[in-house]
């Protein structure tokens, strides 16, 4: 359009104008701007909706992963003392006076628990130290050092002061460090968490491995089905399509519990195998409440997300291409590999990406059928959201997960190209 206008404007007969005498170029630009504004107004409600219900809450949640002012907001004087002094400074009377004043104020405002919880995240076993000292804080008189140490000698612990110094800053990387099994020691150096508490890296690794395995399984199982759907006569393929979609429309919980009924020790599969004499009653297979259960149930649940994009890509591929390849002498394998498969790549890419990303974030199925070995990282995110109420750590874990998925997405874009994606 712009080129055409340029051509018209370059006409030797002079500048083209509209009926009311304005130059055509400006009139056109104005009309286009108006159309764009109108289009923007049309999508505005959706944009606002997404902004309010999606982007802002997620942004707030992610913000928690680096920001926790549980200590700094409720212990202002002590936080100032930390800001004034060098790391490693032994607490003097001024520090204890600030601590006493802050504890008194916090006890009055009922925020000692918040402070204790924040410190407890970094140094287990300290929450009750804050709450119990907070209850005695009203009676503190100078010299504060003696008064506080008399209330509880644990206050002399240099590790505690090192930890308080760390949490006196509202913005801290500590939750992200914890999310990748790291921690900061007294001097602020980054060190590995103690071996018996390292769990997150292993779970991230397991989550990605299982999601990858499920993607491969879905592809292997889904590809022939999608091909059948695409090539059968319409009547038959419609029936088959219903069979694919029906489980897709069924509640996730129902499908997960059905797998429990099928796979458990006294379940349908084991009973059948015992009845036919393939296994003995003592050697029933353990197929649920472990990784196997997670993989089987999730593969089944995610299968439609693979079949549908594959189907939509395969449907328009003319069968004549493969026939032509065959008639030119290609073996059936070569014809499939060099003619059919490349045309289905956008569907494979879309299906694999969908299944993988959904699989990485799956939560309820591993929680119900995963037992101990089938737990994924999302289960621990849920644990920190619902049980330990450590939302900052949950947010940090979620942010790491989001980051890893985005990296994979970027890699995919570099390797395959996101334009080569066909969702249907």
């Amino acid at each position, binding site marked *: 359009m712009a080129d055409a206008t340029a051509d018209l404007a370059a006409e030797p007969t002079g500048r083209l104008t509209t009926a009311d005498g304005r130059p055509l170029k400006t009139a056109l630009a104005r009309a286009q701007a108006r159309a764009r504004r109108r289009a923007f107004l049309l999508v505005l409600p959706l944009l606002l909706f997404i902004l309010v219900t999606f982007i802002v809450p997620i942004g707030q949640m992610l913000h928690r992963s680096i920001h926790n002012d549980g200590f700094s907001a409720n212990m202002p004087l002590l936080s100032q003392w930390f800001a004034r002094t060098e790391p490693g400074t032994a607490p003097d009377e001024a520090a204890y006076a600030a601590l006493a004043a802050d504890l008194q104020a916090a006890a009055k*405002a*009922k*925020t*000692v*628990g*918040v402070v*204790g*919880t924040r410190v*407890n*995240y970094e140094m*287990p*076993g*300290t*929450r*009750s130290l804050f*709450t119990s000292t907070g209850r005695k804080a009203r009676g503190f008189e100078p010299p504060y050092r003696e008064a506080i140490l008399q209330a509880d000698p644990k206050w002399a612990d240099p590790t505690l002061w090192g930890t308080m110094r760390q949490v006196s800053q509202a913005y801290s990387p500590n939750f992200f460090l914890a999310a990748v099994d790291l921690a900061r020691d007294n001097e602020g150096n980054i060190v590995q968490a103690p071996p*018996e*508490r*390292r*769990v997150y890296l*292993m*779970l991230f690794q*397991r989550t990605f491995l299982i999601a990858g395995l499920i993607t491969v399984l879905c592809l292997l199982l889904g590809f022939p089905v999608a091909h059948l759907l695409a090539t059968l006569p319409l009547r038959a393929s419609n029936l088959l399509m219903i069979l694919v979609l029906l489980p897709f429309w069924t509640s996730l919980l129902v499908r997960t519990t059905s797998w429990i009924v099928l796979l*458990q*020790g*006294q379940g349908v599969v084991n009973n059948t195998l015992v009845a036919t004499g393939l296994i003995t009653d003592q050697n029933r297979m353990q197929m649920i*409440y472990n990784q196997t259960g997670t993989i089987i149930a999730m593969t089944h649940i995610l299968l439609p997300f693979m079949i549908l994009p594959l189907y939509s890509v395969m449907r328009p591929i003319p069968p004549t291409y493969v026939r032509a390849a065959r008639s030119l002498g290609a073996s059936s394998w070569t014809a499939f590999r060099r003619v059919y498969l490349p045309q289905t790549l956008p569907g494979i890419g879309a299906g694999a990406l969908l299944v993988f990303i959904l699989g990485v974030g799956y939560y309820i199925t591993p*929680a*119900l059928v995963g*037992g*101990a*070995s089938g*737990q994924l990282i999302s289960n*621990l995110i849920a*644990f920190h*959201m*619902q*049980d*330990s*109420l*450590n939302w900052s750590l949950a947010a940090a874990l979620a942010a790491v997960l989001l980051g890893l998925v985005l990296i994979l997405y970027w890699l995919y874009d570099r390797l395959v190209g996101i334009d080569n994606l066909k969702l249907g």
Partner: protein
Amino acid sequence: MKTALVLSSALTAVAFAASAEEITVMSWGGAYTVSQVEAFHKPFTAATGINVISVDADNPATPLKAMVEANNVSVDVADVNTSDAVRLCDEGQLEEIDPASLPPAPDGTPATEDFLPGALSDCAVGNIVYSMVVAYDASKFPDDKPATIGDFFDTAKFPGKRAMWKSAKTTLEMALMGDGVPAAEVYDVLGTPEGVERAFAKLDSVKGQIVWWEAGAQPVQLLADGEVAMTTAYNGRIFAAAVTENKPFVAIWDGQVYEYDLFVIPKGAANLEAAKKFVAFATGTQPLADQAKWISYGPARKSSGPLVGLFQDGKTEMAPHMPTAAANLTNALPSSYEFWVDHEAELAERFNAWLAN
């Protein structure tokens, strides 16, 4: 015409009053909410005219925290467990409840002395005592029946799979009691690194045999399906399966870990006065005793104990099924919220790491 006008304005006034006098109570769902509706909500509405709306959550503490933090509190009263009540109270997210505002026992004992120890705190009033017990399927053990918490961990003497709650809480305590630590010393031992090692070593000895459950309904299902021979479970669930569904399930009270559920009022509750009225009413001697008619959780008031009667089936005597019955308390552990608010982060992380590896 005039009559119609008067009538309609009167109706409006009534409707307005009704909409103003309404509170929302959040609880845990299932048979538990039913028991509260029958024993607390209905009599409360009958006595005061204040309507009670019942809503459920997986754990009411989680939405409560979110509501108070977002300053958008749509619940007036919530039912939470002890550690959450203490935690939320310390963080200033709950209204304080003056114990003096609670009704005394029928014999005049003030509320502060009538409630069981630990059932009253600055912001919370206990309603029931619930307990984690070991339960077994009697048909799986025809001869020798398991009788102690130690038998739960003895897979040689009592073969069969076990189910346990996927949580550090109660699991570690039970492991220590199963290893022979008396209930009274459990938290002293668990507070030391050696004690934690000891608990995990005990769990290691049965790790391959354990199915982990998360929702309270699961252990009963696992027992009923024959997936496991023994499980830990909430005593009320086992009672319901045994009495109402005639399952051959038996609870072992040795080594039970009991805890309170408490009513709390979130900061910023819209109907504060009505909420306080509800809490005082529901935790009275009679309503607490009435609740046992619907579910086998013990009342948090001493004076309610003798008033506990028959189950709703009209023939089962409830008293022996209460976690607070004297015979059930010989080796029983009151769950320590002080211990768990300090150590939950650390032990839960360790427990999760142990599970996953």
